[in-house]
């Protein structure tokens, strides 16, 4: 299993590095494109195959975040209109909350290191 995780996770990151090398894309753009790619792939049910195959290798990259949003929205749509709208952010709620809470907390606790390099 770890071999599959390593191969798929590594491959997704290599694809990002290829984009960095050949298109001079910045980190923010790559993150957004990968997120949208995961979201669109899951809309057609395709990213699920990758998740079933590689586990964390597919869910840890940011495209897995897009997968989670699309999956939540589609599961919500089965319950009704309200859940169709809120389903995506509900599924991604833990990730977004963790990023905001830990992000703010560690920004308060630590000082800038950039000048020391």
């Amino acid at each position: 299993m770890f071999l599959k995780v390593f191969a798929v996770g590594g491959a997704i990151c290599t694809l990002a590095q290829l984009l960095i090398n050949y298109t001079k894309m910045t980190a923010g753009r790559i993150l957004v494109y990968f997120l949208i790619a995961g979201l669109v792939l899951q809309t057609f049910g395709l990213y699920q195959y990758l998740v079933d195959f590689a586990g964390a290798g597919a869910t840890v990259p940011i495209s897995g975040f897009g997968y989670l949003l699309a999956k939540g929205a589609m599961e919500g749509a089965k319950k009704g209109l309200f859940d169709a709208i809120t389903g995506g952010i509900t599924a991604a709620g833990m990730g977004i909350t963790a990023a905001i809470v830990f992000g703010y907390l560690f920004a308060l606790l630590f000082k800038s290191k950039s000048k020391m390099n």
Partner: protein
Amino acid sequence: MKNDKDFINENYLNYVKSVSPKTNEPRSLIRAFFVGGLICCIGQGIRYLFEYAAGLNGDELAAYVSAVLIFLGAFLTGLGVYDRIGKFAGGGSIVPITGFANSVVSPAIEFKTEGYIYGVAAKMFVIAGPIIVFGVFGSVVVGLLHFGIINIF
């Protein structure tokens, strides 16, 4: 015939090319592959740990794993370790969810001098903001389309 402006631009671009750091392309790809794969394996390890130790499964398990990885990414960014990994790994450290945490904490710390509201709280969304905007917008589109398909057909 070239005019002066083109000539100057060309000189300038050549200068930029000679000064900017050379990325060794095959090597950068290998580094991205290994670091990215390694971070995903750490995620899988945490996944197994939570599955057996805490008996979690499904979406709950996945959510806790990403929360732990975000914690680690944010913590290592605070220590200044993650930026060093980033210099080495490039795409390998940007794309995993730990890179998302890094993109939140890094500008937040950088702009601390501008205060805790307009500095930290506003600047932490410089990169994470677009991700959340496109993510939420996309999920609502997908949800509504799916709802429409289910209820009309």
